[in-house]
């Protein structure tokens, strides 16, 4: 999961990697670092912000205030902008430096390019050096890549690379990237920070856990996953189809197929029926989140139960529906697996009129009909 730039830079600073003086704002603009110019950058966890209009260079305080006012409250590449980072604009030549986990080699990949900035993303697959997961190996690989850089900053880049590798290994990151890294005789400074964390390592990474906890709204999906033990991601706050589904891959595919049919899924969900342990609490939570959105027109439940007893699940679903007075739209359930007949009987008694089927295509057709008749 990608951290916002401000949090990535906080980690950089703790590791001794120079970053520009900056301040995070959510509404009013406080005293600014330095005399300008400044960079105003939308703090959303997504790449390509510059091209999407989320980064602006401003020469005056008035321009900074205007840029902040124009960005906050809008959306950028699917993410709401709640905060901006304002920084003293850095200067120098632009470089690209990254250390990342290389899954195929069970090692790290070190990339250094003389062309930094947005151009690197268009350059396609960038190669680098593969090395063992140790700071020393990264330093060695990087030394090769920067061999022809001038003396004035070569050692500084090497030190930043080693700090980046140490940070990646100590914090169990997937990626630590600086693009651009500004280099000049006056010094080197990280113009941006792209840090991808491993949510599975959170239980033993208190510093990363604290970063997520400090921004409950911005890292809503991650905090939800950590607190609830399952995945729920809101895709479209104006979505029409709420999903109560199991399995990441099948849930993603359902979202794709619904979208291709012209429906508007509200959320992604992998509810993990095997961990419900006889309580409808998890289902009630999901129905609560889904029904918060006034655009909701239908709820699609899709459970492929390899192991789970669907009779038990049906009882929990019926109880959850009963306990969710805010649920006022039709529910369609597609249930396959162990004890599906019993599940159909239970839901048929508890929720007469609700479609319960083993056929996903039939369930999707019903969703089409519901959405079509209300729009």
């Amino acid at each position: 999961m990608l951290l916002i730039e401000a949090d990535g830079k906080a980690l950089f600073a703790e590791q001794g990697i120079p970053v520009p003086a900056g301040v995070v704002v959510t509404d009013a603009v406080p005293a600014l670092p330095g005399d300008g110019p400044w960079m105003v950058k939308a703090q959303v966890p997504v790449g390509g912000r510059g091209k999407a209009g989320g980064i602006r260079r401003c020469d005056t305080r008035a321009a900074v205030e205007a840029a902040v006012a124009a960005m906050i409250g809008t959306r950028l590449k699917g993410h709401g902008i709640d905060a901006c980072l304002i920084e003293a604009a850095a200067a120098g030549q632009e470089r690209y430096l990254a250390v990342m986990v290389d899954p195929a080699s069970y090692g790290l990949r070190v990339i250094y390019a003389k062309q930094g900035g947005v151009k690197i993303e268009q350059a396609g697959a960038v190669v680098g050096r593969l090395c063992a997961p140790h700071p020393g190996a990264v330093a060695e690989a990087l030394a090769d890549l920067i061999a022809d850089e001038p003396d004035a900053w070569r050692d500084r880049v090497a030190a930043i690379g080693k700090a980046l590798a140490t940070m990646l290994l100590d914090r169990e990151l997937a990626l630590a990237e600086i693009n651009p890294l500004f280099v000049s005789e006056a010094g080197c400074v990280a113009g941006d920070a792209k840090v991808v964390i491993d949510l599975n390592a959170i239980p033993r990474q208190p510093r990363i856990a604290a970063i997520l906890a400090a921004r409950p709204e911005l890292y809503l999906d991650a905090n939800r996953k950590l607190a609830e033990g399952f995945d729920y991601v809101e895709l479209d706050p104006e979505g029409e189809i709420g999903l109560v589904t199991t399995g990441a891959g099948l849930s993603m595919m359902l979202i794709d197929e619904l979208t291709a049919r012209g429906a508007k899924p509200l959320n992604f969900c992998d509810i993990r029926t095997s961990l419900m342990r006889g309580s409808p609490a998890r289902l009630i939570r999901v129905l609560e989140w889904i029904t918060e959105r006034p655009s909701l027109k239908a709820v699609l439940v899709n459970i492929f139960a390899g192991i789970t007893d669907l009779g038990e699940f049906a009882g929990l679903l019926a109880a959850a529906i009963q306990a969710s007075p805010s649920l006022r739209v039709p529910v369609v359930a597609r249930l396959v697996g162990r004890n599906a007949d019993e599940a159909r009987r239970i839901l048929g008694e508890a929720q007469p009129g609700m479609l319960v089927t083993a056929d996903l295509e039939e369930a999707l057709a019903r969703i089409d009909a519901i959405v079509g008749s209300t729009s």
Partner: protein
Amino acid sequence: MIGSLSRTTPVIVQGITGRMGRSHAVLMRAYGTNIVGGTSTRADTKDVAGVPVFASCADAVLATGAVASVAMAPPEETWGAVQEALAAGIKLIVTVAEGVPMHDAIRIGRAVRRAGAIWVGASTPGVAVPGECKLGFLPDVCLNPGPLGIMSKSGTLSYEVGYRLARDGLGQSIWVGVGGDPVKGVRFADLLPVFFDDPGTKGIILVGEVGGTEEEECAAAYARLGARKPLFALIAGREAKEGVSMGHAGALVHGEFGTIESKTKQLTAAGARVFTSIESLIGQCGRIYRFDKR
């Protein structure tokens, strides 16, 4: 090793006295898997449903000759379980835990490679040769012997594919869940030679997801190896939100990398067919393999 799995392959279950270990040991054995033993730290349990329980993998291997293991360990204990299995000489390790830390997976991958073993995981529903055996918890309702090799990042989406194949009288030769983790054991590309060399496999189904470069690697390997059998791909996550993991840590799109466009383009260029819906994939398989139905 994966290609030669059968009902005679001796398999142990690490963590057999736990809730998961116990129930899945019974289910695997009921399917036909030769479960010869299990391990547990609980000294008071001598057997689980008739399966002998040992204090360590080394003891279990010594007593039973097991060559494969299914590790039913929680995510933070998976690295330890793999070390124990490797030290005992296990050659195929299936780990099922969801949420193994990525840097543990790197350690596991390096140790498995050093030992010359095969690892399926970190998080996988398992491996199966339908009609013979299953290692893990692939649902029986999806398993049906047939001509198609399946490899999948997603458990549930592959269940859906397997279920509809079985519904239509089609089935699978070898089924491997590679899992949705970014760092993992066997990858799509590693499995192409297995499917190519298996006489029972006539076509290959790849169930992929956005994120990572595994589908692209597989496309390159498929072309390099001469596209010896048809490859059908279904890739989930067209509508995934950039920068956010969709359930699987591996399903994360950054900029141009890991997108469905990149995967579709490279698989298609290598000669694979890429489908955008489950039903279109199943329909095509039905047309091509209608004489291979059982």
